[in-house]
């Protein structure tokens, strides 16, 4: 009985996870599909252009299956998506899945570096601000966070370009790599920093990094602002707890109390914050990618929306949804690593 229960519990957990993932996915495809069909943009026009004859227009409309009832269209779409077919993008003439696989690494590279900057900078700043609550250090960090929250990212991007690229010449300009290095490195992972290292092209690596620094610093700053604010607030509630006083009374060093004990207790909340931040970065920072001519997911989604390229929009949205689902699952795993109480649940 005990053995059976021990086996059944994790199975139930996996089962409920799969059901919730399945339902989330179904809801996601349903909502994106309906939105895609009710927006007042004609997907046929996107393909045939303004000047096409009536026959061409009608032929393409039938090809797209737009004459069928909405429910039937959704069913066909769902069956295809389950088989990994997102259709062909009007905008690029490629299968949407291929497009997504080619643009996503650009965003992943940018988002990862930005997240590293955000986390590595944000958490210590948040802790420092909490420890110095009300003092000038706290005020300064809060002001910096507020600034990061309130400044329009496209403006920050343009100013960053103007200053660090145009005036000071510290970093390279828009795009992922200089024209002279275009197509020099074969795409293995799609992450150009890694691909250039794999190819042993140091010069390309430095050039890629130089292109990456500014957009990732800007996005990193925004993440930093969020992470620092949240860390500060979580830490403030921890530092008020009695066990802090008790551990200090026992003679533990204040450094150890703050950085090990107090911070250790906010990790679960921080993991959620970090996962959400990463998720929003992976959605593709549309404006940053536009300003920096960064061929990532955000730019792809924006362009497909403007081009009324519904296959691409739906495919991209599903990808974003999948990213969130995966991040949620990862967070669940990380919870069990950072919080012993989570490990005990369900057993």
């Amino acid at each position, binding site marked *: 009985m005990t053995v059976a229960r021990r086996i059944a519990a994790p199975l139930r957990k996996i089962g409920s996870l799969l059901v919730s993932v399945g339902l989330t996915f179904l809801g996601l495809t349903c909502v994106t599909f309906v939105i895609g069909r009710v927006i007042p943009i004609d997907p046929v026009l996107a393909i045939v252009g303004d000047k096409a004859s009536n026959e061409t227009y009608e032929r393409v409309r039938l090809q797209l299956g737009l004459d069928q009832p909405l429910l039937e269209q959704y069913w066909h779409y769902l069956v295809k998506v389950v088989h990994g077919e997102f259709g062909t993008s009007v905008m690029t003439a490629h299968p949407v899945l291929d497009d997504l696989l080619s643009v996503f690494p650009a965003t992943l590279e940018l988002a990862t570096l930005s997240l590293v900057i955000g986390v590595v900078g944000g958490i210590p700043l948040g802790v420092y601000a909490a420890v110095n609550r009300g003092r000038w250090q706290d005020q300064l960090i809060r002001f910096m966070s507020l600034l990061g929250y309130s400044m329009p990212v496209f403006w920050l991007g343009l100013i960053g370009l103007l200053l660090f690229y145009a005036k000071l010449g510290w970093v390279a300009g828009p795009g992922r790599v200089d024209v002279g290095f275009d197509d020099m490195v074969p795409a293995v992972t799609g992450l150009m920093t890694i691909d250039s290292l794999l190819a042993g092209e140091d010069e390309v690596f430095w050039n890629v990094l130089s292109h990456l620094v500014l957009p990732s610093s800007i996005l990193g700053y925004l993440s930093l602002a969020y992470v620092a604010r949240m860390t500060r607030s979580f830490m403030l509630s921890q530092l008020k707890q009695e066990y802090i006083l008790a551990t200090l009374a026992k003679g533990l060093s204040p450094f150890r109390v703050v950085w090990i004990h107090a911070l250790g207790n906010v990790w679960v909340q921080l993991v959620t914050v970090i996962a959400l931040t990463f998720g929003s970065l992976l959605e593709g920072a549309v404006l940053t990618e536009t300003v920096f001519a960064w061929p990532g997911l955000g730019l792809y989604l924006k362009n497909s929306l*403007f081009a009324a390229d519904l296959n691409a929009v739906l495919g991209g949205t599903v990808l974003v949804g999948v990213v969130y689902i995966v991040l949620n699952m990862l967070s669940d795993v990380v919870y069990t690593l950072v919080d012993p109480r989570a490990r005990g649940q369900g057993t």
Partner: protein
Amino acid sequence: MAKISRRQALAGAAAVPLALQGQAALAATPKDTLVVAKQIDDIITLDPAECYELSGIEVATNLYDRLLRYEAEDVTKMVGGVANMPSVSADGKVFTFKLKPNQKFHSGAPVTAEDCAFSLQRVVLLDKTPAFLVTQLGWTKANVKDLVKATAPDTLQFTITESYAPSMVMNLMTSIIASVVEKKIALANEKDGDLGNTWLKTNSAGSGAYKLISWKANESVSMEAYPGFRMGPANLKRVVIRHVAEPQTQRLMVEKGDVDVARDLSADQIKAVRGNKDLRIEDFAGANTWYLGLNMSDERLKNEKVRTAIKMLVDYDGMVNTFLKGQFFVQQSFLPVGFFSAMKYTPFKLDVAKAKALLAEAGYPNGFTIKLASNNSAPGPDIAQSIQQTMGQAGIKVEIVTSDRKTVLGDYRGRKTQMTLMSWGPDYFDPHTNADTFARNTDDSDGAATKPLAWRNHWSIPEISAQTALAAKELDAGKRKAMYEALQKKVTLEGPFVLMFQNVSEVTFRKNVSGFKLGITEDLNFYRTAKKA
């Protein structure tokens, strides 16, 4: 609260990222490469039998040679391309083209009349957007293989079943549909009987001055010079067009020298870079006509006096002298200046008093309220606001409805708008292309076979349509010119179009770049003459 020393806390914060300073790029483009910053997100295919987007046409112009051409050396004179100028039968129906000798495709295979015939046939057989350009000649999927043939390895002959002026047919043969595709390569890459369409969307099989290295959608187009080109190799070995969506970013890049040419700077940005000694600004007339469509299903707009009053309530000069400065000039004809028989025609000026009198005569002394649909990208909203302001002076209360261009277009095509601010670009370099849409509407029913601009505005014009058809067929150039002049006047004065502006492209070059000129249409934008010092 426990005291923690500042040093201890700072030690924890030591992981704050150091300013990441990569190796800044050397801001200069390679000497043998022309790097252009441009918005190229409109490209959806590079197959010349399918491509109908402006950036795509420009790229295809350089990848494929065409039967006939207006060459970069003199864009006003039609000359032979792959073939010499054709001979035309006395009845104007049979066109015979002799190919120029020793031409080769990028693959090294010779260019033959069979390739030329195949290229024209596949436009009709594929039936993609540009197919209408040649189906108007009477070619159908059923007859095109009989009507378009290679009669010898170096001789192409085609027959048209409809009557058209030979000059118009020849002009069609300078457009994208007359791009010569290598038959063998297209068929080798055929999938499900698509005549190589899927493959040619992203690859090239031509004999133009450049061959395609890669097109990455919304990212870049890279081309390499073809040394065996008919007119000799291009000056620069490579051309890279980078998609830079944000004009401000384009400006920074051209100022910095990361690109040689910036194509999409706004009027304000152009003004700001004018003083830069490293840059040069050049103006090129475009062929886009900006106009206001007046839907005559609305009783008020059906009244000619109201339409004339509206034409007098637009501040044409005021706009081109202020926010449209450098980007547009006033042209109140449906033909852009630079086209055969185009008149520089500007009969209307802002005249509120006269307009008021006309409105009173028409029975609207206090004006009325009307909706104006405009797209939400520049300069649409600015023009719409100016119109709103000047029409308001005569009592016409304009409600502006702005939305995305595709939404406006959908409503306009469905004849759901009252007034529509729109632009129109010609399909090929002949006056018939615009006359056929502004001055033709023989069936105003909802189920009409074709839906030209006159149809979209409910302008039922059997007589004018007949004149348009006659002008397209007229063999005598002088008479043809006079016919188009009469049509232009009629459409401007009586039609449901407030014809306003013709566009000008302002291009920003690095000083060391020369020889790259933009033509009046994308069919005339040649990269091969560009040079770098």
